[in-house]
């Protein structure tokens, strides 16, 4: 295991896609210290920015201790091994990740797990916007793997998601599961409005309050509980289907108890009025 500690408080953004077990494996500390990173527009080596220490086991693990909230692309395209961060971490954590595990004891910036296809990201603090979502213009969202966030997430979590799962213990911002086609998102807290916008498939489960429901969703019924992956979450839940303007049949489960503001609409529609 290689342990990295920042040498200073960073100011300019640091792009460090080399911080990944795939890159570190088989390299000595000296070799790792020579890896190139960018600090703003200046090319640096990892060794100029971080102090290193080494532990024999586990071999394929990287630990970062300290605030790396300015460091971007940690675990980019990672395929195996493990990264553990004790502190906040910057944008694009585990972007395009294909395997392995990343754990953050702190918060993560936007685009964590962007377009990942396998592996596990667990963030014990909050995460920014675009959790698991692809970068601008791309429609290739998350296609596998798991993201767990123990606190809140920003807007557009799970956008363009095709498969895999996202579990949010806190609350979610607007446009949760935007243009989602498959996979599952579970929110234990509340969700801001526009959840499921443009969704055509997949499953969003909101255990708390959904601020408002989009007009292009229709009520399908009430379900006592719902399975999200291997886990059974008990309700009861309203089941809405949409986004109808996209011809979608995405499923939006919303806690019945926590969303009394939706009950007049549900009652009216169920009564066929």
């Amino acid at each position: 295991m290689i342990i990295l500690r920042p040498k200073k408080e960073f100011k300019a953004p640091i792009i460090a896609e080399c911080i990944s077990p795939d890159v570190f494996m088989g390299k000595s500390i000296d070799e790792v210290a020579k890896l190139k990173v960018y600090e703003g527009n200046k090319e640096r080596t990892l060794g100029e920015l971080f102090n290193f220490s080494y532990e024999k086991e586990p071999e394929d693990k990287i630990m970062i201790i300290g605030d790396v909230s300015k460091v971007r692309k940690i675990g980019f395209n990672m395929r195996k091994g493990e990264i553990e961060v004790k502190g906040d971490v910057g944008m694009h954590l585990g972007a395009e990740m294909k395997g392995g595990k990343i754990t953050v004891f702190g918060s993560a910036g936007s685009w964590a797990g962007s377009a990942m296809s396998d592996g596990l990201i667990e963030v014990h603090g909050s995460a920014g916007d675009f959790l698991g979502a692809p970068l601008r213009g791309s429609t290739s969202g998350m296609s596998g793997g798991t993201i767990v966030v123990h606190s809140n997430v920003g807007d557009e979590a799970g956008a363009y998601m095709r498969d895999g799962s996202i579990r949010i213990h806190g609350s979610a911002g607007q446009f949760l599961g935007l243009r989602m086609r498959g996979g599952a998102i579970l929110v234990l807290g509340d969700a801001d409005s526009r959840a499921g916008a443009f969704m055509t498939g997949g499953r969003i489960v909101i255990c708390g309050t959904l601020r408002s429901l989009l007009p292009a969703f229709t009520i399908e019924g009430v379900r006592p509980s719902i399975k999200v992956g291997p886990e059974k979450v008990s309700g009861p839940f309203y089941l809405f289907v949409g986004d109808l303007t996209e011809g979608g049949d995405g499923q939006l489960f919303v806690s019945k108890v926590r969303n009394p503001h939706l009950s007049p609409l549900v009652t009216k529609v169920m009564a066929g009025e």
Partner: protein
Amino acid sequence: MMMELLIKNGFVYDPINGIDGERVDIAIKDGRIVERVDERRAEIIDASGMIVMPGGVDLHSHIVGGKVNSGRLLRPEDHRKDYEVKTKVTRSGVGYSIPSTFTTGYRYSRMGYTTVMDPAIAPLKARHAHEELNDTPMIDKGFYPLLGDWWFVLEFIRDGKIEECAAHVAWLISSVKGYAIKLVNPGGLEAWGFGRNVDSIDDPVPYFNITPRDIIRGLCKVNQLLNLPHAIHIHTNNLGKPGNYTTTLDTMKCVEDLAIDDKPIAHVTHCQFNAFKGVNWKTLASGAPEIADYVNKHKHVTLDMGQIIFTDTTTMTADGPFQYILYKLTGNKWVNSDVETETSAGIVPIRYRRASYANAVQWSIGLELALLIKDTWKVYLTTDHPNGGPFTEYPRVIAWLMSRIARERTMKRLNKRAVAKMTLPSIDREYTFYEIAIATRAGPARSLGLKNKGHLGVGADADVAIYDVNPKEVNPSRQYKLVRRAFRRAAYTIKSGEVVVKNGEIVKSMMGDTIWCNIHVMPSLAEDVAKGLKKRFREYWTVEYDNYPIPEKYLSISYPMEIKAKV
């Protein structure tokens, strides 16, 4: 004083001068090919074991202007995967299907191309095209203004006033500093103004009492009256629709009687997209044999391939209604851009897939056209960049043309049903280097009427490409990969007498010329045109008459071709 250069010992392919792989030394002085230079003073390039050709000439490649730039805007995901880092001599940029301006220039130059024409610019946005051309280094360039749906053209042709029409076209081309007359889905774009289209060359254009046939014939006559160096450049009606090869034949036939001498009067562009047989996408088949048959029997038309490449690219044409159909077909993102009184445009990203029946058929059509048309001077290599694929993939097309084995290799990976129906497997023909030189430089240069381009005779512009492949040792049919590699990265590119590329890398950045036609009609006619336009300008456009023409000083290096019209 400019450098003198001497290219020694290369195998020269210069079809315009009939040189077919002979060892000829090429002498260069002051940007021109000369008889000889002083060997002691000149820089010597040893081209032993290499091919020497005139610089590549591309007569149809969407590289600048409003539509291309909207395509760039639309596709950040296309740029992210392919970018260029700044070097000491080059600017940074992005690449793949719609490269940024600098990158476009560098990449053409690295392939040994030295002249490129953009085929579709809305005249109202010509200033934009020139701004981008001013930022496109390394190549000589120009563009064709879109004229087939310009209200003035429609009205004059409707009223039978061909001479007035010609005078207005002359004013427009000279004002916007364009090069040739371009027609795209004539009549269809005007109809698209209200969301409609035309479906044959005899389908009337709404509100104008005129048909595409009238427009094509009218502008063909205008082109002849104006003595323009290039033929009318036509993107036919019904492009991209199964069964459209008959429209293409109709289009070629409808100007047959206008031909004088043996000079081609119509260029049917990216013919692959308009050579579809069948009644729908499931029954799509190649109409290339029929079209090739017609072209083999007639002298008034030329074509370019519009070859597709199996890749993720961006389609962009002025054919608004076609792009809308493509948007509905693919569900991908869609840009439409209609331009008042003139034209329209559309953009849709697309991925051509080997497993797709339709895409496999399309691939075969392009190659069949090139291989079934016997006279190489009549069909040129293009991918209709970026519609069929980015221009950087030309070397792949060269390999397919030169090697039956290369074609078979690709066919093995294609949709089986498509391959079973193709004519292509039965075609043995393989292009020679001489024919490649025709299809990629001599032919387009001659078609464009660029007398100093596309050849290495004395007096020609010193635009030269040298490729590191030995024609005496390499058998392109079997060793097509070596050929492909050589054409991807020129050993040397010489532009206007200066070495700008070595071993596929830019060693010197420079600006090429912007080539345009300055057309002179009779002064009295020109005066009438100006007077009439001044009076009616605001009826047509939302900009002022004074602000429409582009002053010559706007072009970073202006190269006007002075043309004396018959009217």
